[in-house]
């Protein structure tokens, strides 16, 4: 109990960093995912290369490149910026595929019916394609959000004190790795359960 009383406050503080960095990464991923999805759908080389790179190279290596390699090109990014940007750019590649998949599930026949009834392309997008696609995408988006929260543990390599790094620090200073990592895991679980509840709380 003493351990929890001592370790919990700094870990919760660090978990705050995990939350906001993940949130920015997921938001960036969703926003950037849209133009990338459009680019992929149009078979644009830039979009296909983007998705191939960010899905094909491990996130850890991407973080290293952003933080340790870019300075050699004269681009020196603050650690938090390198971390959120890399997380967001990587997330965008996956979101683009999720968005593409969601729109692919919209039946062509429903769009033809809408066109014939006189809906404009804009109305068809807003009233039919988007709502159907969003509904189809939701489970995959939540899944990706959970993966990003967990993947954010990797940003400790650029020196940001987030949940995993704080657990590492507490484990090495107290020589009690088991409770430190168990508590860390429990906090990740609680955050992701909240995300899942948020996802289920809305009617499909």
């Amino acid at each position: 109990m003493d351990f929890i009383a001592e370790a919990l406050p700094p870990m919760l503080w660090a978990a705050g960093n995990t939350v906001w960095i993940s949130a920015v990464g997921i938001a960036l991923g969703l926003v950037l995912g849209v133009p990338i999805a459009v680019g992929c759908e149009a078979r644009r080389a830039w979009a296909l290369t983007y998705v191939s790179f960010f899905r094909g190279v491990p996130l850890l290596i991407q973080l290293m490149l952003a933080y340790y390699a870019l300075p050699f090109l004269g681009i020196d990014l603050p650690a938090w910026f390198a971390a959120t940007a890399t997380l967001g750019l990587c997330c965008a590649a996956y979101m683009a595929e999720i968005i593409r998949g969601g729109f692919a599930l919209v039946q062509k026949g429903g769009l033809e019916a809408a066109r014939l009834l006189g809906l404009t392309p804009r109305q068809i997008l807003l009233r039919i394609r988007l709502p159907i696609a969003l509904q189809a995408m939701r489970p995959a988006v939540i899944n990706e959000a959970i993966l990003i929260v967990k993947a954010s543990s990797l940003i400790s390599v650029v020196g940001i004190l987030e949940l995993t790094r704080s657990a590492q620090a507490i484990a090495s200073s107290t020589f009690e790795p088991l409770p430190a990592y168990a508590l860390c895991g429990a906090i990740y679980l609680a955050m992701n359960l909240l995300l899942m509840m948020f996802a289920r709380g809305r009617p499909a």
Partner: protein
Amino acid sequence: MNPVLQVRALERRVGDVEILRRISLDVMPGEAIGVIGPSGSGKSSLLRCIAGLDPISGGDVLVEGRTAKPGDGAIGMVFQQFNLWPHLTARDNVALALKVVRGMPAKDADAKAEAALTKVGLGALGARKPAALSGGQQQRVAIARTLAMEPRVLLFDEPTAALDPELTTEVLDVIRTLAASGVTMLVVSHEMGFVASLSTRVVFLDHGVVVQAAPPGEVFGGGGEPRVKTFLKTYLERVAWTKDA
């Protein structure tokens, strides 16, 4: 009386393939035209070209003397796969176009949607989403959605092909009632008995050409073209079912 729908020398080609070859057809107000023929004969293409969903390579489609465009409300179409919007309730499926295309206030659009659903026997099911309806009910919602926009001509593209015999009957009854109330329609169907009893005229298509266009008594009564006779004979052999057979 002028024809409400005029199809003049309609052609559709895709690459080298001629799907429709100079089809001409005048449809008078209140007529119910049954379109029959083998698969791949161009029946669905004919309806899709009339509706403006497929581009035409030649000829004209005129509704009340004017070239019809998709969405101008002149032509309504009911599809084989219903094509309802799965995220909206039956009522909203019917009311959406009234609201956003016709600019009708939500209250009036909903009332009109309810009336259209009642007309197809679904007055009580407006709050259900398509997934909670049977195939026959979904197709009736699709009919109500088209009816609510009051098109001049209603096209049915194999409206019962995705339904079992019982559900087929409930949809055919709705179409029959509409035809009796004077709705001008073209119906593509493989339900020969239905086409025979519903139609004022039957058009037989084969390889994109009108082989015969005549009153149903003539087409089904044995006085048809040889190609039509062969087709109907095959059909009758398939549906004729006896215990000994």
